């Protein structure tokens, strides 16, 4: 590997931008393709698929044997609300490989006794969220049920283009939330991005079951191609 390629690969990884390294396994020739350049690449279908699956793979193209090595950032999960559901959700998400942070300004909720080993930020979203570097590789879940906390957090998630945004609440609650967010400048496409009621419809009742429903939905959004994603939702 040329040092320039390694240097660029490390810079992209540090910036949490996905890239795929394409290696001709016979000649050793390599090139680095950034996700934003996929659309114009002759291998775009393969690149898209492998990045979505987060899986490296061999392909044959133009008589060459190529190895596509996927370097995608570790996914993050930001949970707004140190509530009962979050106590089940945080360890489950961590076991699936997510970097998890829980945000709740209410110190009685955001206590280390309730969340052993999980990073907690006991601040209002306006203070807590900017340093977390919420990005397109972040799933964002708002479960406090308190508009004072959830609403500003959701506005931040829209702005940062999170790959998944979910919020707790019935359809009725969600309709009211939509009105409030619109009044604060959110547009229709922002509101449409919120998964609410949150989680796949699996009849979840207990906090742990709701956590499973949420992680199943996040996994579907992360892994399924766009068409199948619509069918699952």
């Amino acid at each position, binding site marked *: 590997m*040329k*040092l320039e390629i*390694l240097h660029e*690969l490390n810079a992209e990884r540090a910036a949490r931008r996905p890239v795929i390294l394409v*290696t001709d396994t016979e000649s050793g020739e390599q090139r680095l393709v950034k996700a934003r350049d996929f659309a114009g690449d002759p291998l775009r279908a393969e690149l898209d698929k492998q990045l979505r699956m*987060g*899986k490296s793979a061999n392909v044959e193209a133009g008589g060459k044997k190529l*190895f596509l090595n996927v370097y995608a950032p570790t996914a993050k999960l930001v949970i707004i609300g140190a509530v009962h559901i979050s106590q089940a959700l945080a360890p489950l998400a961590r076991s*699936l490989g997510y970097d998890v942070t829980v945000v709740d300004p209410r110190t009685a909720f955001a206590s280390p006794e309730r969340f052993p080993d999980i990073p907690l930020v006991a601040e209002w979203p306006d203070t807590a969220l900017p340093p977390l570097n919420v990005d397109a*590789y972040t799933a964002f879940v708002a479960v406090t049920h308190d508009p004072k906390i959830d609403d500003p957090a959701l506005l931040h998630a829209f702005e940062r283009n999170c790959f998944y945004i979910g919020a707790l609440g019935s359809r009725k609650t969600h309709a009211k939330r939509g009105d409030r967010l619109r009044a604060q400048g959110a547009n229709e496409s922002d509101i449409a991005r919120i998964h609410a009621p949150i989680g796949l419809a699996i009849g979840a009742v207990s906090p742990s079951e709701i956590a499973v429903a949420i992680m199943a939905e996040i996994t579907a959004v992360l892994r399924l191609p766009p068409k199948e994603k619509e069918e699952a939702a």
Partner: protein
Amino acid sequence: MLDRDEDILKAAEDWQKAGHGVALATVVETWGSAPRPAGSSLVINDEGTFLGSVSGGCVEGAVVTEAMDVIESGKPKMLEFGVADETAWNVGLSCGGTIRVFVEKVG
């Protein structure tokens, strides 16, 4: 996206800049039950120090030896390991899988 990767690629860059010969070994294909998926890598310097893994310990010794050759020659190599190898007792994968490992020089 969900794998936590120790920062071995950063180490590769740092070693190279510090004047070491460095090789990178990457699992490019697996069959059967293999301990580490395609894309897993191991970085080796000319002192034999290595970071990361391609098999969770089964064949690292052999990969490091081959990597020394690659650092010297500059030519990439494709290695294959499996239980069917005649050297299986030494460097085979006890889990029964087969892996191919691409070894290349950095720099």
